[in-house]
């Protein structure tokens, strides 16, 4: 779909959620390269509502054929619940679950001021925000899969990612991945605390402006689970190039106020590498199918996927 057609469809669609009294004009569009699971368009809008003429900058986040193994349903529900509770999350303006309008489901949210580049000045506040997320009450959350008793937090994540991989295999399975998944099933720890989990936290996935965090972004992997899932992801995935492992652990323990169980933390490190390997497999399937011919999918299907597999094997088998 070309830009003119996309703008025409989006303009008409946004009239109702924006409560526009006339038409909505898209005056500028900028597609950003960050974020591989969604096509991200920053849009400048002009329209009138009951208060008069106005301009508004929004972001349209369009799914990409299930790329990286997630859809927008949990993401939008989670963002709306968190925004309503005062957590720093963008306001979701509209969510289109069908692919009728743009060929893929999408949602539109308010643009939030800030940059996602790493800034050590905001690291403490970020860890605090993540700990606050892990401390929110979850009794009223009915839109996420509940965690089973026993080893549910770990086993559900292992099976979630394994199934994502398995349903996107191209021709042959990966023996090392199959073995690593079994290793993790056999060593799943019992549940500790069950909390909201971001699922993809760390530098690059929060915005900051003038030294303060303005929003946590990319909620597509939000789920109920073990907060160690997030801590491990922060330390060894997104935060690995920002601070050392020891620096992150020291920071987390000081701000969250509890000692980290290093054995549990290392288990979740391996689960996060498994996640990376498995969601990258979706790129291979989608690229080979031709659903999305973009070369970033080839890169994720090959180099990114293999690098994650190497790290998974180094973590599990050494």
């Amino acid at each position: 779909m070309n830009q003119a057609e996309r703008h025409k469809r989006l303009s008409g669609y946004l009239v109702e959620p924006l409560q526009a009294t006339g038409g909505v004009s898209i005056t500028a569009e900028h597609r950003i390269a960050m974020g591989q699971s969604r096509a991200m368009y920053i849009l400048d809008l002009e329209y009138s509502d009951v208060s008069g003429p106005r301009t508004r900058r929004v972001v349209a986040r369009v799914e990409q054929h299930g790329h990286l193994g997630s859809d927008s349903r949990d993401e939008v529900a989670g963002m709306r619940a968190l925004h309503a509770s005062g957590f720093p999350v963008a306001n979701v303006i509209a969510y289109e679950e069908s692919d009728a309008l743009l060929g893929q489901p999408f949602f539109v949210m308010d643009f939030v001021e800030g940059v996602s580049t790493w800034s050590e000045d905001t690291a403490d506040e970020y860890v605090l925000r993540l700990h606050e997320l892990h401390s929110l009450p979850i009794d009223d959350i009915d839109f996420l899969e509940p965690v089973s008793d026993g080893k549910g937090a770990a086993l559900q994540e292992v099976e979630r990612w394994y199934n994502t991989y398995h349903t996107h295999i191209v021709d042959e399975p990966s023996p090392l991945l199959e073995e690593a998944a079994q290793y993790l099933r056999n060593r799943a720890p019992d549940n500790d605390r069950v909390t909201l989990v971001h699922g993809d936290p760390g530098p690059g996935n929060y915005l900051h402006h003038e030294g303060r965090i303005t929003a946590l972004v990319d909620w597509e992997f939000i789920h109920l689970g073990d907060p160690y899932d997030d801590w491990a992801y922060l330390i060894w995935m997104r935060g690995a190039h920002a601070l050392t492992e020891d620096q992150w652990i020291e920071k987390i323990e000081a701000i969250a106020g509890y000692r980290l169980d290093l054995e549990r933390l290392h288990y979740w490190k391996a689960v996060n590498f498994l996640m990376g390997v498995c969601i990258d497999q979706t790129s291979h399937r989608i690229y080979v199918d031709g659903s999305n011919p973009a070369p970033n999918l080839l890169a994720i299907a090959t180099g990114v996927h293999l690098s994650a597999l190497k790290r998974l094997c180094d973590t599990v088998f050494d």
Partner: protein
Amino acid sequence: MTLPVPPSTEIILRNSIATVRDVLLPAVGDDEWAKFNAGLLEGALQYALESLSEDRAGSHRQHLAEALGGLADRVKTEGDASLQLALEIESPFEAASAVLIWVQNNPGTLADDLQQVLHAELFAQLDEELKAAMPIMGAFQRGMRGDL
């Protein structure tokens, strides 16, 4: 026949890389998404070019089958029924998967020995594929850094 010797795939890919690098990439200006894709396209074509000279998939399949074949006698004498069935699977990748899952569920000397043989072959294949993917991986990393 007006073209008795058509241009080789290698020549086409090599020249396409030069065109993407020297013509398209400089022409996309400040369009972040277009620049990201042009850079990746150059890497993708390089990856394809360097994959032309060898059938890595066929080689991986053959070498893994040979590694599994080398385990057959040991599995026949020491393995249980499920392990023996695993070795009978036609696809070497599926067979190796089944054997390595068995290894995880049946720790011991036999499991250690099977794992050692299969890991040696599979890690060699992993390293070879990682090396082959360097052109596209490098382009992706540069693109994510905004360094194209």
